[in-house]
């Protein structure tokens, strides 16, 4: 239909916060194009049939209620058939014939809406254009002959899969549900955990052609209003034909054109999103995407996992130290190794220097090429491991481990030391916490450090470190400095960076992110009960 009528009115994506029809629980900003619904069903039907011409998956169901002709239109497969069945049953069988005689036909639709529609949500619409679009947004519409009113009935059952455990952010303790593709399920998962009246949600329709529903959620008094307004602005600036996944939206609304590091967090865990909302962040749920965006984001968050907040804080402190170590190893070790063995041989202790030199004696390549080749092999194995069907995956492992590792070392093409170095790097790469994105981003950092280390030795490594520091600190996520609370240094907010303070001690929200209400917890620290004198009776 769009091909004939041209694109849908451009203002679909224009933000509009004045809800003209805020009847149902699901508000969608209205399109500004306006065509009144005619009292003649024939006219309406003709319009709709013309608009939906050549679309076989749209169902036009015509039926009579008593003598009154009615029309229901929906997208096949998106409507719960039991609910639609209920509709026809109640209208065709339960409505007494005198109703259509007694009620003037102008008010008939409203009357039906009040008395005979057993749906949990209906919207009354007077605009044909809007009504038409509701069809495309998974709703069922009902038109009654004689009434200039259309009814939008919510009987949506989008095709979905069952609830699964999170794939990327798995935990040992803590909740195990994860987001699914339908937006409504995702918002429900969030709302079910956060029953605060001030948890607000605003709808946007993004995508000129896809008409994707996007919901912005935030807790009104926790989120910084300026940041939320900024998010609204950026969402309404998006002008794209289709929004397939939340990651696309992420690239469209982040603060920088290019950034090696993720500026908006992507999560598949409802508990994480709720925790972020409670810290004053906002969440963006995109229909059709099982990943929810939250922002503003800080760099240190990518080194944290959901489980950090469920485990013993003392253990978490240790685990986090290891993660920072892993970050260092994953970014620097290959570069450092090449720098030390080709520039600063005097820095190795004497047994090590002989081991490394002896192992390298048969290797035909310079250390840099050696490191680069194994590193690339590792990257290829990684990629293959993700893409290959699970059945073939085993074969890749065997080839990778045996042939490339063992055989290359035995043939003297690479040294054992180098294989160990790259293996340590690879392990560290995945021990970073929840940041899969970070893990894939720092691959480039590692390569650049390798080049810098083999060109200028330790000096090169230091230069690389500085360059990335400048890049990182220059980044902002919705205006919040990315490296906070390290830079700018905010000692008060370090409670959740290198270590995690126990929950009774996490009294405040991050001030750079959250709005006015900074008090997180007033729980008194746990203490043993006051000592009571031993009771006399028990002594006996």
């Amino acid at each position, binding site marked *: 239909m769009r091909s004939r009528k041209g694109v849908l009115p451009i203002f679909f994506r224009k933000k509009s916060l004045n809800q003209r029809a805020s009847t149902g629980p699901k508000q969608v900003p209205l399109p500004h194009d306006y065509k009144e619904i005619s009292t003649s069903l024939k006219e309406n039907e003709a319009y709709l049939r013309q608009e939906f011409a050549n679309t076989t998956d749209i169902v036009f169901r015509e039926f009579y209620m008593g003598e009154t002709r009615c029309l229901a239109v929906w997208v096949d497969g998106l409507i719960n058939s039991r609910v639609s069945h209920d509709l026809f049953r109640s209208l065709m069988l339960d409505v007494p014939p005198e109703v259509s005689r007694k009620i003037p036909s102008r008010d008939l639709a409203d009357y039906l809406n009040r008395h005979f529609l057993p749906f949990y949500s209906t919207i009354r619409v007077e605009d044909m254009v809007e009504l038409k679009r509701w069809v495309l947004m998974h709703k069922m519409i009902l038109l009654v002959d004689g009434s200039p009113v259309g009814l939008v009935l919510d009987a949506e059952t989008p095709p979905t899969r069952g609830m699964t455990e999170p794939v990327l952010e798995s935990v040992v303790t803590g909740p195990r549900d994860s987001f699914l593709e339908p937006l409504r399920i995702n918002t429900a998962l969030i709302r079910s955990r956060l029953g605060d009246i001030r948890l607000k949600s605003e709808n946007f329709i993004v995508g000129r052609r896809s008409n994707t529903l996007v919901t912005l959620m935030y807790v009104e008094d926790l989120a910084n209003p300026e940041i939320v307004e900024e998010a609204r602005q950026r969402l309404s600036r998006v002008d794209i034909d289709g929004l397939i996944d939340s990651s696309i939206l992420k690239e469209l609304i982040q603060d920088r054109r*290019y950034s090696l590091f993720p500026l908006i967090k992507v999560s598949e865990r409802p508990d994480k999103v709720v925790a972020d909302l409670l810290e004053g962040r906002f969440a963006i749920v995109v229909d059709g995407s099982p990943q929810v965006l939250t922002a503003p984001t800080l760099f240190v968050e990518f080194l944290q996992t959901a489980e950090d907040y469920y485990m013993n804080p003392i253990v978490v402190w240790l685990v986090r130290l290891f993660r920072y170590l892993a970050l260092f190893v994953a970014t620097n070790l290959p570069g450092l190794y090449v720098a030390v063995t080709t520039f600063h*041989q005097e820095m190795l202790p*004497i047994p090590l220097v002989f081991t*490394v030199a*002896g192992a390298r*004696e048969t290797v035909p390549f*310079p*250390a840099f090429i050696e490191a680069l080749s194994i590193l690339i092999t590792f990257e290829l194995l990684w990629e293959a491991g993700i893409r290959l069907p699970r059945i073939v995956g085993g074969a890749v492992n065997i080839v990778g481990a045996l042939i490339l590792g063992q055989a290359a070392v035995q043939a003297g093409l690479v040294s054992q030391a180098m294989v160990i170095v790259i293996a340590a790097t690879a392990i560290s790469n995945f021990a970073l916490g929840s940041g899969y994105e970070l893990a894939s981003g720092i691959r480039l950092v590692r390569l650049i450090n390798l080049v*810098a280390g083999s060109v200028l*030795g330790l000096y090169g490594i230091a230069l690389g470190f500085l360059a990335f520091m400048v890049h990182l600190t220059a980044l902002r996520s919705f205006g919040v400095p990315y490296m906070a609370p390290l830079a700018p240094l905010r000692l008060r907010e370090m409670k959740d960076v290198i270590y995690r303070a126990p929950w009774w001690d996490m009294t405040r929200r991050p001030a750079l992110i959250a709005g006015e209400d900074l008090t997180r917890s007033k729980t008194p620290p746990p203490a043993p009960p006051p000592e009571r004198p031993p009771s006399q009776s028990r002594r006996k």
Partner: protein
Amino acid sequence: MRKVVVTLLLPLLLVTGGCWDQREINDLAMVVATAADVVHEAGNEQVRLTLQIANPIALVPGQGGGGGGGGPGAPKAFWTVAGTGRTVRAASLSIVERIPKPIFFGQDRLTLVGERAARLGITPLLDRPLRNRETRRSMYLAIARGEAKRVLEVEMPTFRATGLAISNLFDLEGGRQAIMPVDFGEFAYNLSTGTTSPAAPVVEVVPQTSISAEDRKSLGAVPQAIKVSRVAVFSPGGKLVDFFDEKETLGLMWVLNKIKTREIIVPCPVEGPVEPVVMGLVRSKSRIIVHLEKNGLPSFEVKVRTTCDLWEHFGTHPGLLTPQYYESLERRVNTSIEREIMHTVRKAQSLHADVFGFGEEVKRQHYPEWKRMAQDWPEIFPVVKVTVKAETGFRHRGLSVEPVTARKEHR
């Protein structure tokens, strides 16, 4: 995007420009020990530098020739090579022509200086290692009895490099008995004071002691070993003056706080046959106190505080370990320490060599007077009065009490 391209291209540009200081680790001839001799060659004095160079491929198990190094065809783990030249650097350059890889001094652990070179003056030999970026001040310095080259040429059964063996010995056993490790930093410091006589440990080549006279005939060549046990004493100007014997070295080590652990043998204080008792030193700390005498000369009081355990009672009779004898044991240890130190002091005074840093102590404690006597210190040192005061604390006597045969008398 342009920015990204530029950032990526910049290092590549540098790669094509050449990496100036890049050297693959296996392309280096890694020196683990150096020996410097001064020899008379071609009519003038020349420095002969002997380097002990590692061959890493023979040191890594599983690679190359590997393991035992037994077979005649197997590559040797270390290669000792010598070259001569007018200076240290010139000598090492003359070696460059004979080995296939650039020489790398970054892993050098030990510098040996030959006796003749030390007698002629050690200072010129020290300049290159102190100036060179690769060598370190924490490198050990030792004086070889005779030619230093011979020490590095000794083949040892366990350590394949003499140089590494000696530096290992200093690392692990320095401060035991008469092994007194000295690194370049300390030696240079002592030379820089202008009054202190530096001392450095002495390395000797000795025959392996287990060989009897008959073996010696059948073996033909005698297997040799390395011994480190004494110190060589230098003048403040850096010329070798004399060697201390083992006892004098021990006395010196008390004063310089170089002793970590050692045994002190004292006669058993219990009535009866005189039997040796070995006291083990656990820790010791000495201090030099300077007094100014009426005649304007300083006098020195060396105070040593030690803690000892009983290590061995080489005897049969009981009673030693009743508390009444602890004090006499301590007294005997004290006397032994005092005697050792006084022995060394007299020797040092006879050599006019202030090995203890007494002059430095005067400077530290009585600066105005020191300024007066600094010039004449070489004359003052031999005549100053030195007293030693040792104070020993007895700690424990090990896991058993009396010698086996003596136990029944205690029932």
